[in-house]
């Protein structure tokens, strides 16, 4: 209901890449190790001497060395974990300890051993053949008319918002929500349907016999199918996005346009609270959704509860502007009846890291003296604000209104940013003596209304890096297509999964497993909570026992002394161990969801798009290696 992005977890960041790579190596390495064990136990005993002789000597040496090293590193890591007594690493909080490093090295060796034949095969692949197979898939989908049927249905869905009432201010959100939901449902299902049945149908109808008897590497069939369907669905998506955009842009209410028809580029700080029980939390007002923390105006004599945003990496571009726009969207929680038409008020104070005690008083005094007679918002007033903010490293806006469901804004002088960005070794050394140096810029918000609470989260206050005010159709349109990129990633995920699974399974089973994995991915956060035992009510067995005992809360069974409770707890722990092993098979679909940015009028950064693309690649790459082996070892003619 706000022009604000709400996140249950932080978006992807470039600085998380190294930890991500380590985690990926461990996780994919684990699966590669399972594959290698299966190879040694099941496949190798069936090899004939000539099969073994056909493998080049250097490849055998490399493969066996990698396997040996992997085994050694796994043993060392196991000993490391046992001796250090460290718990199994939490998948959500990664720390690179020595056993973890050994685990990573073991994983890397297994990946090399399992991946080298795949990589060598890539050099034998030819673009022209992959292109031919992709073109075939493209034509097949078009000439079988599947795509027309679904596109027709999609057009009907696009107009669903005609029948969905919405508040005029939410018009853009509603329209964007509906078109993305419609595109999501139909395009993803079409993609899954097309790609699940293509290879099984080729095998069933034996058309694949005329392909694999040509000089075609079998993995080229997988790539050809993948790229063919992806190209087709991309064209459909681009066309549908264009139509949807025209649909969204026509007849937008001015208020909705001002609220969401734009692509804000926000710069966020980190939120902390002062004068509350916990600096990471404000007051809990009892709302079921614990996304926001609340502050209120204390009774006289009590310290003022303050929400503080620390802006650490201030962009230098902001310093060159006369005014910097700061937007905020807070939630109001009233404990007493308010006055009709009257808002709740907050005061915003901005401090540079060079601020000294008393600078605020000096600022106010000089501002009052020199600002007499100046018209608010005039060039002279802005110049004065800039000068004083740069001089004192302080600025404030008193009694700003906070209205439910509305994004409000204020401006601060660019001089304040200039002050914050200036080097000041003397002040820095002074501050270091007192403790940690504060963030270059801090924004402190206090509530001015008694008995009323104002709720806020990290992303409820931000500076606008873009300068454009009001609605901006061009940037919105670009952002709309960026939002469709998220859908494209989901499509690529589904097509990739379905094509890979269909190299071994029949069409129906491939489709089912693809959908299970995808929908499992939508609930991956919950699965991750279950895997580490963070969910309420314990594991599945504990939850079941609690239901039979009619005790919905209480101490965890693991802390109980009862033997039956211990057995239940142990069983759940074994279940969690299994879930932790398989959780990486589930795609992190939430990372590819970008339509909420478009709906709320926030820009989707190129970095975020790149990182999401990288995440998809990292997820699909092991699946494609699996497809390579499944196709290579499959007796194409035996299943007919």
């Amino acid at each position, binding site marked *: 209901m706000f022009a604000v992005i709400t996140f249950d977890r932080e978006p992807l960041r470039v600085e998380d890449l190294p930890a991500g790579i380590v985690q990926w190596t461990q996780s994919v390495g684990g699966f590669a190790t399972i594959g290698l064990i299966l190879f040694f136990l099941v496949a190798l005993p069936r090899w*004939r001497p000539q099969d073994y002789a056909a493998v080049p000597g250097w490849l055998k040496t490399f493969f066996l060395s990698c396997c040996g090293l992997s085994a050694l590193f796994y043993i060392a890591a196991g000993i490391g974990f046992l001796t250090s007594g460290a718990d199994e690493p939490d998948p959500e909080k990664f720390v690179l300890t020595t056993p973890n490093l050994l685990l990573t090295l073991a994983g890397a060796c297994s990946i090399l051993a399992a991946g080298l034949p795949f990589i060598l095969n890539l050099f034998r692949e*030819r673009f022209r053949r992959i292109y*031919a197979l992709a073109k*075939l898939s493209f034509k097949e989908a078009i000439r079988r008319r599947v795509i027309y049927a679904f596109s027709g249905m999609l057009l009907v869905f696009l107009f669903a918002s005609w029948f969905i009432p919405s508040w005029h201010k939410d018009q853009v959100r509603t329209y964007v929500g509906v078109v993305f939901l419609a595109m999501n449902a139909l395009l993803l299902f079409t993609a899954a349907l097309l790609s699940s049945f293509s290879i099984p149908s080729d095998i069933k109808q*034996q*058309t694949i016999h*005329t392909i694999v*008897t040509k*000089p*075609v590497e079998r993995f080229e069939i997988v790539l050809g199918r993948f790229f063919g369907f992806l190209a087709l669905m991309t064209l459909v998506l681009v066309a549908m996005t264009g139509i949807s955009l025209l649909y969204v842009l026509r007849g937008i209410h001015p208020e909705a346009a001002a609220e969401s028809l734009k692509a804000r580029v926000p710069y966020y700080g980190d939120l902390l609270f002062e004068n509350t029980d916990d600096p990471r939390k404000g007051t809990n007002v009892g709302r079921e959704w614990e996304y926001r923390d609340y502050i209120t105006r204390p009774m006289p004599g009590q310290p003022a509860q303050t929400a503080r945003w620390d802006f650490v990496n201030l962009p230098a571009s902001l310093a060159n502007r006369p005014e910097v726009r700061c937007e905020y969207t807070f939630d109001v929680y009233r404990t007493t009846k308010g006055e009709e038409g009257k808002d709740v008020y907050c005061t915003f104070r901005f401090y540079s890291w060079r601020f000294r005690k008393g600078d605020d008083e000096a600022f106010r005094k000089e501002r009052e003296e020199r600002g007499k007679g100046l018209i608010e918002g005039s060039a002279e007033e802005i110049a004065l604000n800039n000068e004083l903010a740069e001089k004192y490293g302080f600025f404030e806006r008193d009694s700003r209104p906070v209205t439910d469901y509305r994004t409000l804004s204020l401006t601060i002088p660019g001089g304040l940013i200039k002050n914050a960005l200036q080097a000041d070794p003397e002040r820095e050394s002074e501050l270091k003596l007192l403790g940690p140096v504060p963030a270059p810029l801090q924004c402190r918000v206090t509530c001015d209304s008694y008995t009323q609470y104002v709720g806020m989260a990290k992303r409820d206050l931000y500076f606008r890096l873009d300068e454009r005010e009001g609605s901006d159709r061009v940037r919105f349109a670009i952002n709309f297509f960026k939002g469709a990129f998220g859908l494209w990633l989901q499509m690529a995920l589904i097509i990739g999964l379905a094509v890979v699974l269909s190299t071994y399974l029949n069409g129906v089973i491939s489709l089912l497993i693809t959908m299970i994995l995808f929908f499992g991915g939508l609930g991956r956060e919950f699965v991750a909570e279950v895997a580490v035992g963070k969910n309420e009510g314990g594991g599945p067995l504990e939850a079941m026992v609690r239901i039979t005992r009619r005790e919905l809360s209480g101490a965890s069974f693991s802390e109980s002394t009862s033997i039956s409770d211990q057995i239940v707890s142990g069983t759940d722990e074994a279940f969690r161990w299994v879930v932790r092993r398989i959780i990486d098979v589930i795609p992190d679909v939430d990372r590819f969801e970008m339509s909420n940015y478009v709906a709320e009028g926030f820009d989707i950064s190129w970095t975020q798009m790149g990182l999401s693309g990288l995440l998809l690649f990292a997820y699909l790459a092991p699946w494609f290696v699996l497809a390579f082996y499944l196709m290579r070892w499959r007796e194409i003619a035996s299943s007919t």
Partner: protein
Amino acid sequence: MTHEVIVETRKLTKIYRDFWGRQKKTALRALNIEIRKGEIFGLLGPNGSGKTTTIKLLLGLLFPTEGEAFLFGKPAADVSKNERIGYLPEESYLYRFLNAEETLDFYGRLFDLPPRVRETRAQELIEKVGLKNDRKRKLREYSKGMRQRIGLAQALINDPDLVILDEPTSGLDPLGARWMKNLIVELRNLGKTVIMCSHRLEDVQDVCDRIAILNEGELQAYGEVKTLLQDVNRVELRASEIQLTEQLRRDLEEVLARHGGRIDTVGHPTTTLEDYFLRIVEESKRHPGRRYQPGSEKETIKPAVQSDAITERR
């Protein structure tokens, strides 16, 4: 024909197993054969004898349980060998949503042929297989014979040295079958090696130089057709410009008796039904409106005009 070996199998064995690795059926047992350059080699046998399994093993569509197969000196599993092979499956398993030109263009791309070569070969082959007027029609609209023709065209798109044909005349009418057999002979005349697998014995006898007969996965006979079919204990004599009379029969019996032999049968030679059928169709084309008259079946059947490749061989 040279004696250069193009295909060689050494104790080639295929045992089908179930999911748990239990033996289900031995489809082929220790097959040792050699196929030479420039010959037409026939694989014969009843249904389930292992003919198609052998072809699939040669093409790498199945993996051998034991033994090896080499084509052009490379193992059957080597993808690069396919550069020199053309394969026509039993049913023409092609993409029915493509037309003839698109089909050949697609398979040409799989051979990484340059666009100009692809286009030229496609046009030549479409003309060769007689589909010039139907080249824009989707394959789903083709008759079985037309699909077999386009199937053969795709097998020849790379100008292969070895052509493998699985039941090439299956489902074709006599005209189509004759056309196919002529083409096989023409391929051999161009220096290509042809392996064909069929249970239509007359087709194999018509075109093959050498054959292998399989039964229940075992090789039962292997060698040149002429040698295998020759009955050395019997003599066939054909004579022309003479009437079959009682006197002639007695004279022949006397001569043969002097050499310790006897007459089994004496009579007028008959042509094959296929030749007769083709001649009738040919004549009906030459004389439109001609129809069957009662009693005409008693007319003397003259030997077929020896104008095509197959009858020339006889």
